[in-house]
């Protein structure tokens, strides 16, 4: 065994002292894939080359809301070096993907709906990267544009353009505990504000990339991904193959942060390799990555919180609207998680929370590190400071007065029975901030 290739780092760190107690857990051992990554030996998907490999690129819509009337690829096909142009008509299985809701086409069908700028319309496959750009320019597309909607608040109104058949509100979460209105009426301090947060890009350093090949009747896809088994389910369904005929191998993945949970190149690569019988490679350029991939949900949060004269939280009332863009992706769980976490790590006796995941013709938002909680934390932590100001105490004090402890009951009625470390983190953060001279308030 070559220990170096797996990042083993010599006896001092990894040798196994004989006897009881933790021996490996709790130690800062080096990464098992570290050596490959520091030597340049790690082969990311874009680094793979296979004999006879073709290259692929997607034609994307330039309008946010339309019906695709006609797509004419004859010009592209006539270019030397273009091996094929695939459209929705070439998809043997179910032309819809999505982790929660299968609402996103792999390629938009003729007569089908375009719901955002960047929707995939056709896949060009060629002998070199160089030919793809010219080929894309030669595909003729006719759209019948539809009125778009870009604001989630407008999209929720009656009469707004409908983006999906089931309406623009993709999901609603409600959490009720106690009697919020009564508590608000009795509270000494009530603070209400609207918070808005922006759309954010994951900006993983490695863009979406993969290579596919058919080996002995088996479709193998090496791909940068956060969930290879989900990829397998989607590729198999889209290509109408048994799951046993699809093998997804996660290539070393250059960051994900939630953005590589969605299908990007997987199904298109599978389609191209399966249909041509040749290996195919597909790598997004940065611009395409930023246009095509999901984003962090922008939120509009209306937040009311109330406390007594000592800063004890009495009630929290929150309404969250998240813009999930053209497709659901991880929108529903993002908004659900935001609702569940809306009180912050504080015990609140009276709670009413509503969150809405709303379709628009914007770029789709999906999973991004934190799943809606960074947004809601901005709101609940601003509110805590505002209450502290009203009460006249410092920000640590109001948090210590309200934070969960063993035995606390959350807004969803869950009793926390173990491993409730919030108080400890507040105390230790405050102590360190004092040591460093950052915080000069009371210990």
């Amino acid at each position, binding site marked *: 065994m070559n220990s*170096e290739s797996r*990042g083993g*780092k010599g006896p001092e760190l990894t040798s196994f002292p004989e006897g009881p107690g933790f021996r490996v857990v709790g130690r*800062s051992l*080096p*990464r098992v*894939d*570290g*050596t*490959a*990554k*520091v*030597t*340049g*030996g*790690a*082969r*990311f998907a*874009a*680094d793979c*080359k296979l004999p006879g490999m073709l290259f692929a690129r997607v034609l994307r819509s330039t309008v946010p809301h339309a019906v695709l009337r006609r797509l004419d690829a004859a010009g592209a096909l006539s270019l030397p070096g273009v091996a094929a142009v695939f459209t929705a008509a070439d998809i043997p299985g179910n032309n819809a993907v999505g982790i929660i809701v299968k609402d996103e086409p792999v390629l938009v069908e003729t007569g089908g709906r375009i719901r955002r700028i960047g929707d995939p319309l056709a896949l060009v496959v060629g002998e070199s990267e160089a030919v793809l750009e010219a080929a894309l320019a030669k595909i003729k597309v006719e759209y019948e544009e539809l009125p778009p909607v870009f604001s989630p608040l407008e999209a929720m109104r009656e009469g707004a353009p409908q983006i999906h058949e089931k309406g623009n509100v993709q999901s609603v979460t409600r959490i009720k505990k106690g009697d919020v209105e009564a508590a608000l009426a009795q509270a000494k301090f009530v603070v209400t504000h609207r918070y808005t947060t922006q759309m954010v890009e*994951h*900006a*993983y*350093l*490695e*863009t979406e990339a993969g290579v596919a090949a058919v080996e002995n009747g088996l479709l193998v896809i090496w791909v940068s991904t956060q969930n290879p088994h989900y990829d397998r389910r989607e590729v198999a369904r889209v290509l109408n193959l048994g799951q046993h005929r699809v093998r997804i191998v996660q290539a*070393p*993945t*250059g*960051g994900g*942060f939630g953005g590589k949970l969605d299908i990007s190149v997987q199904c298109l690569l599978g389609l191209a390799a399966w249909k041509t019988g040749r290996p195919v490679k597909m790598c997004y*350029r*940065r611009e395409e990555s930023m246009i095509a991939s999901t984003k962090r949900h922008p939120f509009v949060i209306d937040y009311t919180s109330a406390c007594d004269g000592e800063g004890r939280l009495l009630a929290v009332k929150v309404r969250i609207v998240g813009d999930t863009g053209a497709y659901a992706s991880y929108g529903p769980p993002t908004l659900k998680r935001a609702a569940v976490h809306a009180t912050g790590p504080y015990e609140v006796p009276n709670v009413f929370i509503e969150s809405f995941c709303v379709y628009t013709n914007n770029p789709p938002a999906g999973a991004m590190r934190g799943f809606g909680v960074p947004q809601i934390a901005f709101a609940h932590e601003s509110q805590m400071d505002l209450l502290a100001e009203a009460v006249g105490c410092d920000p640590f004090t109001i948090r210590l007065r309200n934070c969960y402890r063993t035995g606390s009951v959350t807004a969803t009625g869950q009793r926390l029975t173990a491993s409730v470390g919030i108080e400890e983190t507040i105390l230790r953060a405050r102590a360190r901030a004092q040591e460093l001279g950052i915080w000069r308030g009371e210990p």
Partner: protein
Amino acid sequence: MKPFRFKAIINDRPVELLIPPNRRLLDLLREDLDLTGVKEGCGEGECGACTVLLDGRPVNSCLVLAPEASGRKITTIEGLASAGRLHPLQEAFLEAGAVQCGYCTPGMILAAKALLEENPDPDEQTVKTAISGNLCRCTGYVKIVRAVRLAAVKMAGKGGGR
């Protein structure tokens, strides 16, 4: 387009190739020479993933036309370890936990190598400046800075390193 005769010393080995002159150094290294430790992150000099050393100085190989690098000495990450032994920077990156996804790592290490050759004992701010053209989305840079300073110590112990 007349082909261009490209000659250079790459990772201490002479290389001679006939190339179309519109080739970027990045593509020459990755496609023609299979030096895929050189990564493309943005194609416009904004991320440093494609950093290589040109006569010892870091440049973005996506912004270098390959013929412009002809006649020069080029170092990629593949040229750092010798005879199976890691360079002290590579060791330090492993030990300090400076690697996460690894996509920025080759470029980071090369930027750091150029620094340490010029300044064997850089302070924290100097290290931060030396890697300020290299984007890392994973680590927050803290452990990368620590790794570079650890490598400096290692190299001083070995009489200046390689």
